[in-house]
């Protein structure tokens, strides 16, 4: 009974195969040869419609295609597992000469594949790998995070702010600390409560974490997530929020005040240009606000009126290179001074930060 089905399934699919191959013979000449566009591949951890992290990278990819006329293929929702290695190899198989892997968890797989394909260049976002044909890129998002902290600190009435955070990675911890320092620079009594979701992209779970924080009495929600779930939670409760990655005012018009932003396109254009010209060298790219790599989204009407002046003042100092977010004195959660006045946290130490500053209510796993 079933046998006949299977036989047919096989015959049919092998027929399509034959047809596919038969038709393939004449077609490749016109389709694959005419222009031989330079091919770049993007590996995304979420869907491009996430309105957050992946969406921001997608804008960068589009900018790259537009400005350099290269072909930039992409794959969405790639899990941070072995699947990533396979996707990278698929793209190389399809002719990609440069791979941008845009999530921390891709790191090991990028490094592994990079060693197998010395002629392809690999750029990994937010990690620390560096080799002959692979490098990493990231930036000082703590600058706009600090600024967004100023906005939140001025807005909160209950002196209690919620922060929906992904994983207790140093990247996320650094962001929470910068945000909290910003909050306490204008409102020393405010605390920042942290909830871990252990997801980058899970709208429902991230919204639920925000709701739990709201139930604990916070009245501003900030986030380190790739979705706008937390914003929606704030909107529904009629309180306020700070987004991340993109302007999230559409999802939460009455709650959203501002968001720290990335300008990935600038880096993608610069890097691919260098690779095409043969001048590219592996480097740990670290973009700052001064470089235009990170920025704070324009404040909306929801933001407190006095925020703009406060933000602009600090921002001007950042642009002039006069302001260090992690300049002492900084106390840790127990109140101990860990960064004395006059010194600051060095970049390598920032990149391995495993402690919270005073004012954060939350725990880091071992």
């Amino acid at each position, binding site marked *: *009974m079933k046998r006949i089905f*299977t036989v047919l399934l096989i015959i049919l699919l092998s027929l399509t195969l034959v047809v596919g191959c038969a038709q393939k013979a004449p077609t490749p000449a016109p389709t694959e040869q005419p222009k031989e566009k330079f091919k770049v591949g993007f590996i995304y951890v979420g869907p491009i419609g996430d309105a957050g992290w992946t969406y921001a990278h997608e804008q960068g990819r589009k900018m790259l295609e537009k400005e350099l006329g290269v072909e930039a293929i992409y794959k969405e929702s790639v899990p941070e*597992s072995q699947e990533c290695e396979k996707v990278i190899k698929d793209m190389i198989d399809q002719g990609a000469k440069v791979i941008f892997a845009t999530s921390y968890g891709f790191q090991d797989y990028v490094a592994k594949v990079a060693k197998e394909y010395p002629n392809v260049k690999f750029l990994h976002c937010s990690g620390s790998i560096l080799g002959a044909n692979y490098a990493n890129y990231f930036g000082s998002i703590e600058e706009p995070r600090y600024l967004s902290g100023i906005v939140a600190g001025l807005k909160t009435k209950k002196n209690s702010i919620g922060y929906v955070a992904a994983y207790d990675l140093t990247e996320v911890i650094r962001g929470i600390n910068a945000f909290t320092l910003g909050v306490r620079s204008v409102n020393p009594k405010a605390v920042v409560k942290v909830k871990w979701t252990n997801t980058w992209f899970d709208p429902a779970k991230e919204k639920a974490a925000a709701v739990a924080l709201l139930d604990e009495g916070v009245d501003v929600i900030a986030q380190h997530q790739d979705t706008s779930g937390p914003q929606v939670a704030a909107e529904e409760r009629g309180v306020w929020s700070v987004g991340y990655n993109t302007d999230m005012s559409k999802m939460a018009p009455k709650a959203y005040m501002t968001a720290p932003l990335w300008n990935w396109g600038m880096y993608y254009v610069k890097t691919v240009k260098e690779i095409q010209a043969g001048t590219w060298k592996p480097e740990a790219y670290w973009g700052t606000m001064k470089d235009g790599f990170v920025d704070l989204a324009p404040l909306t009407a929801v933001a407190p009126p006095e925020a703009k002046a406060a933000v602009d003042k600090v921002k001007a100092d950042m642009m002039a290179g006069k302001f260090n977010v992690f300049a002492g004195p900084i106390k840790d959660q127990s109140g101990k001074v860990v960064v004395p006045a006059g010194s600051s946290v060095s970049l390598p130490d920032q990149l391995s930060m495993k402690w919270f500053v005073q004012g954060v209510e939350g725990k880091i796993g071992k």
Partner: protein
Amino acid sequence: MQFRLVKIAETSKKKQTFIFLAAILLALFTTGLFIMFLGHDPVKVYLSLVNGAFGSRYRIEQTLIKAIPLIITSLGIAIAFRMKFWNIGAEGQITMGAFCASYLALNYSYLPRPVLLSLMLLGGFIGGSIWGIIPAFFKAKWGTNETIVTLMMNYVALKWIIYLQYGPWKDPAALGFPKIPNFAENAILPKFLGLHIGWVIALFLVISVHIFMNYSKKGFEIAVIGESVNTARYAGIEIFKTIVLAMFLSGGICGLVGMIQASGVNLTLSKDITGGVGYTAIITAWLGALKPHWIVLVSILFAALVQGSSYIQTAFGISAASAQLLEAIILFFVLGSDFFAKYRLVIDWKGLSRKKENKL
């Protein structure tokens, strides 16, 4: 007016062929509409789907890498299904097999490679078989519903791995990222003819399961229980023992998949270790009529569908969700056609005996 479904005793091969071809054509037509709606040329997309699955040596390898776990899991499921024991728990059995193998890989990496790998294979089998025996014992002893028990045990296994990944087994070198450390070199399956050695294991299992099911006494007894428990009892078959043995094998074979995926493909354990194979294999085992050789072919075709649809995502910029929808539509028609081969719809006008066959 009344609608009735009538079971067809025997469908002619001709009719089956017709229904099946119609299903495939309808599937291609429906997905074609959807592809046009997305703004692409359906013929081009279909051709590159095939091209993406078989177009180069690399792509064929990738298709086979996807097919290996499907084949082995389907074999495991087939043994249980032959007994009409609905083992929905392959997912959990794979996970527990991977867990046991990973435990050995992470703690005994100083052992020589052949010894360690053999132990891991054994561990994988035992891990899976324990997860298989538990529902078998409940079913044989108290007649519990195996579908529910095996399904629920999947979640127990999954949560266990999540606990390990975010807790005690978390890699301290990963700067807080929740991942289990990668296996040492000698806990990784070697390659044979360009592909990890799992395919040799798969081939060996196909032959072994075929012989077991068709030429051994136990295999025959399992089939008898599947046909009728009372007949089996009357024939003097030890029901309890046979059910437990069948699930020991079924779960154990699925457990091997866990070991192969952890050691040959993922190089570590993670909560995504199964990749949903435990559920997909139910479909491939069923479409393969529970026969090992058909399972091989169906699994390869299924893997080709998955690999091809992954290819069209990057080639045409079709979103991941749309590509999955295409896969689902094709499966829906292929599986759905089975219904029309087994039943026919009878419309009874005002209780009169005027019957009308509803053909597609």
